[in-house]
């Protein structure tokens, strides 16, 4: 606040900015600064990794049978003859203009690809995290309140299974039982083969687009396709969120103010939800935000098993094919998501925790 104080003394005739205003400006500036530095670091690291990887991007485009002249033409076209720093500066300039370049492999702008694949991941992750939160948080609270009871044991087993089962195995088993044998859910893919490209793309989220189009049949089909992979992801989030909720709640339930509340004669419901739970909201927000960010990175194995064209499999395929523009574009988007979710959770901190205001 020294800067604000100095400003007040040097310009006594002008309306001074309040401490609160300066605080907001400082916070915004520092947030922008930290986002910029983080992004620059992210871009630099991914760019350098991309360039030192033992993959020849030219060979990945032209193949090993191409003539030297074809190889050279692509080499220069990609700007690989220029110094690394120059290549990086060019890249930085393009990214600032939201231009991630052209995918080396499918000749489309990477930004278009990301706009196409990211909604698939966003949709899956959002349904997944909703399931994780809606079930995981109450389960964790109950497990803490009824510590060592049967419900706590169940919550522990659920979490343990969630932690320890390979997602690949669980996904296949789920697909096999609920799609293959019972036929309760749709198979791999976002919608059935007959509904592909039927609904006009508005948001890229098929559940939303089908509703916007008023096509309930496709909504149902899309829901039947998303429910299994989302439940799978939700289960993993649930396992983590419920354990963390339990741990946070236990800490609160042993605190003196809880005993005081009980002595005052408050109902157990009020003690748990109005006192203890209120105090773990901030920690929970961090846990949920991190889980959500993790899901938004794209779960590669889930996307592979369920043929879900999301950002995880997009980046992985690009990486394996040495399509570095796509890798860098995807990585920057994932990095941005982490940064934005961090800012968002910081913001919620300030709302829920008076000390952080």
């Amino acid at each position, binding site marked *: 606040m020294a800067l604000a104080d100095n400003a007040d003394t040097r310009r006594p005739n002008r309306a001074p900015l309040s401490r609160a205003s300066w605080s907001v400006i400082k916070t915004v500036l520092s947030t922008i600064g930290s986002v910029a530095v983080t992004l620059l670091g992210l871009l630099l690291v991914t760019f350098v990794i991309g360039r030192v990887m033992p993959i020849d991007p030219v060979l990945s485009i032209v193949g090993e049978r191409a003539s030297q002249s074809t190889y050279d*033409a692509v080499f220069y076209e990609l700007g690989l003859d220029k110094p690394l720093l120059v290549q990086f500066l060019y890249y930085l300039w393009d990214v600032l203009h939201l231009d991630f370049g052209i995918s080396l492999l499918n000749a489309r702008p990477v930004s278009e690809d990301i706009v196409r694949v990211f909604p698939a991941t966003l949709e899956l992750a959002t349904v997944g995290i909703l399931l994780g939160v809606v079930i995981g948080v109450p389960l964790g609270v109950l497990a803490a309140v009824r510590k060592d009871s049967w419900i706590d044991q169940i919550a522990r087993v659920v979490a343990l299974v969630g932690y320890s089962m390979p997602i690949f195995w669980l996904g296949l088993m789920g697909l096999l039982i609920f799609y293959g044998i019972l036929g309760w859910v749709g198979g*791999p893919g976002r919608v059935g083969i007959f509904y592909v490209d039927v609904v006009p793309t508005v948001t890229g989220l098929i559940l939303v687009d089908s509703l916007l189009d008023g096509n309930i049949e496709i909504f149902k089909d899309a829901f039947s396709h998303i429910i299994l992979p989302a439940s799978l992801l939700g289960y993993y989030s649930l396992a983590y969120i419920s354990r963390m909720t339990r741990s946070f709640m236990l800490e609160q339930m042993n605190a003196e103010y809880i005993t005081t509340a009980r002595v005052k004669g408050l109902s157990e419901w009020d003690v748990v939800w109005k006192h203890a739970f209120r105090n773990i909201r901030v920690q929970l927000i961090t846990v949920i935000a991190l889980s959500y960010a993790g899901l938004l990175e794209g779960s590669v194995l889930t996307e592979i098993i369920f043929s879900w064209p999301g950002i995880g499999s997009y980046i992985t395929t690009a990486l394996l094919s040495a399509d570095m523009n796509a890798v860098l574009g995807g990585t920057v988007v994932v990095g941005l998501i982490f940064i934005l979710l961090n800012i968002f959770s910081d913001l919620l901190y300030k709302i829920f925790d008076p000390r952080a205001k």
Partner: protein
Amino acid sequence: MNALNRLLSGAAIGLAVTVTSLGAWAETPANMLVIAHRIDDVTTLDPAESFEFAGGDISRNVYGRLVTLDPMDLAAGYKPDLATGWEVSEDGKTITFTMREGVTFHSGNPVRAEDAAFSLQRAVILNKTPAFILTQFGFTPENVTEMITADGNTLTLTTDKKYATSFVLNCLTATIGGIVDKETVMANEVDGDMGNTWLKTNSAGSGPYKLDGWKPNESVSLSSYPDYYGREPSMKRVIVRHVIESASQRLLLERGDIDIARNLNPEDIAGASAEEGIKIEDELKGRLMYLALNQNHPVLSKPEVRQAFKYLVDYEGMKDSFLKGQYTIHQNFLPATYLGASDENPFSLNIEKAKELLAEAGVEGLEIEAGVREAQERIEIAQSVQNTLAQVGIKLNITVGTAKQILARYRARDLDVYLGAWGPDYPDPQTNAGTFAYNPDNSVEANATGLLAWRTAWNPGDLTEKVDAAVTETDRDTRIKMYQDMQAEFREVSPFVIMFQQIEQSALRENVMNFSTGQAVTSAAYWQVTK
């Protein structure tokens, strides 16, 4: 997916199948073909640039060519497509094609000789990866407009010297021979790219199917072209869906949500084959698995040692175990189903014979390095060879690396032994003869890294001349004989231990008939499929 995942998925499905039979719960429409396939190798749809397997499948169904291969009779070789016939000049250098009348592109524009000339000229001028298939006939960006010309309804193609007509025509059946709609393509030209950027993601063909859409790593949709000059396909729509995981493909097939699963692993093939309503079809593909012995190595260059290595591979053992269903034994440089292919496979594991040969060469206590790409099947083959070599006192150190690392060393003649795969580039025997058995200048300065014989530092002697002679032989039967003779000599003297040829196994619903993946010579065709 690694072996563990394959095992897990196989076990998962196996477990369920023992509990209950999945059966088919759904069925795709009778006039629609749905295929699960890995299509993440598609990088461009421009026939002048496309050089990947899945891209070749799309191109084959979307673009007409001057000559084509009949998926119902691939052994018959090329036959007329957009050209109804051709005449060869007396000097054998000029082929004049007569174009089919009344054929239209998907845009409605007529298919003219001008379009055909433009398409071939364009491929040479753009000089993309597969351009060598055409430039080997002496076409250059500078001379191609004079060498390939259109006049009315005829197209004239003049090569720099006389070549076997079958050689030229076989090359024109490749993806790069696809004829594009000049008007449409040039209307989408940007910065003099001859429509390349546009054609990467769009199509301008005249084939039995038109492209409805390609979503990278998601799906390809085709619909039949009602004005196609030939018989209209039974399958009005074809959807190829990108499904990476073998177990997922199998579930889709068993549920009846797809008609064909093209990437099942051996465990899932075995499982699916036991299911009612599903059949498995095998087709030989072009990929060969081979060992190359560096002839700069003082020991490996001895004829007896080269011969001994051919007796030190457990062909049968590998074929019947970890390569089961995926590879068959093949010891010749031309894949089976190619013109001139030989089915002679004289070598088998014979430790005693190898010992005799090594003793003749005076070899004892040899230690060598083999380079292998990090691919499961190749590493397993290398380990098998390591085991059999150990039985005659040869220590094989296996170096596993990325494709770039291992190929770079192979190209630099830096590996004692290279274990790798080779797939033909176009459907003519020259594609493999011209790299395995051809090396006119074995010097380091020649740096002919495109030739496998050069990479192996091997001077094939008179085989180089024989390869040259075969590409100019106009009589088809004589040409076949020439390749068979070459391969007989090659088998005995070359430093290449050719071991296996790839098999592609597809799992199909029982009602799907006439599907062809194109064997070794071409790509998949859908227009003849019925249900």
